[in-house]
């Protein structure tokens, strides 16, 4: 069975500090991978998607970047956090139809 693991579960970071969030998918070969962001009480905003290793498309510009170094791994990062980066980050996968989410990472930027 496929599993999706996100890390860390939660982070508290200072403005201007770097960030790296990770996501691993097991049990599926060459899935489409996605990063979403959700403000508290808000809807989901797609940030990035990737259909293959080494290829990442940006959907919105939020001073964040993403990389897919392996088929089953998706990384979200930034060198300098902003207050506006606070929120809930969700990794997701699909094989073209249904979208399945990880449990998310709660990020607080202070």
């Amino acid at each position, binding site marked *: 069975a496929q599993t999706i693991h996100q890390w860390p579960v939660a982070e508290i970071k200072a403005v201007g500090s770097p960030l790296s969030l990770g996501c691993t998918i097991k049990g599926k070969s060459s899935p489409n991978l*996605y990063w979403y962001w959700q403000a508290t009480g808000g*809807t989901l905003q*797609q940030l990035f*998607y990737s259909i293959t290793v080494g290829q990442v498309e940006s959907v919105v510009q939020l001073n964040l970047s993403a990389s897919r170094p392996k088929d089953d791994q998706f990384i979200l990062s930034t060198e300098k956090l902003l207050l506006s980066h606070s929120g809930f980050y969700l990794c997701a996968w699909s094989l073209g139809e249904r*979208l399945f989410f990880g449990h998310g990472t709660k990020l607080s930027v202070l």
Partner: protein
Amino acid sequence: GDQVEQSPSALSLHEGTGSALRCNFTTTMRAVQWFQQNSRGSLINLFYLASGTKENGRLKSTFNSKESYSTLHIRDAQLEDSGTYFCAAEGGDYNQGKLIFGQGTKLSIKP
């Protein structure tokens, strides 16, 4: 741009009752998905529809692409149905991976 309008924004039901959530689309959508987000933030995929109606237990969803709407019906509501429900649609100008989410319906089930 493409938009998804979800209603109501909040809904309160007593256990055992039912209701419907709705999403209206401003442009032609290729497919729709419905998700439940629980109190821990986890999102559960309830349905994927490219057309027609699907049913799963106490939930039923319909997608009418011609009239640009989708509904999610809940019957015999249980406490565990509480959470926020989102619809998400693939735009007509389908850009692979671009899924547009509605603003969500916060559902509270009361004993």
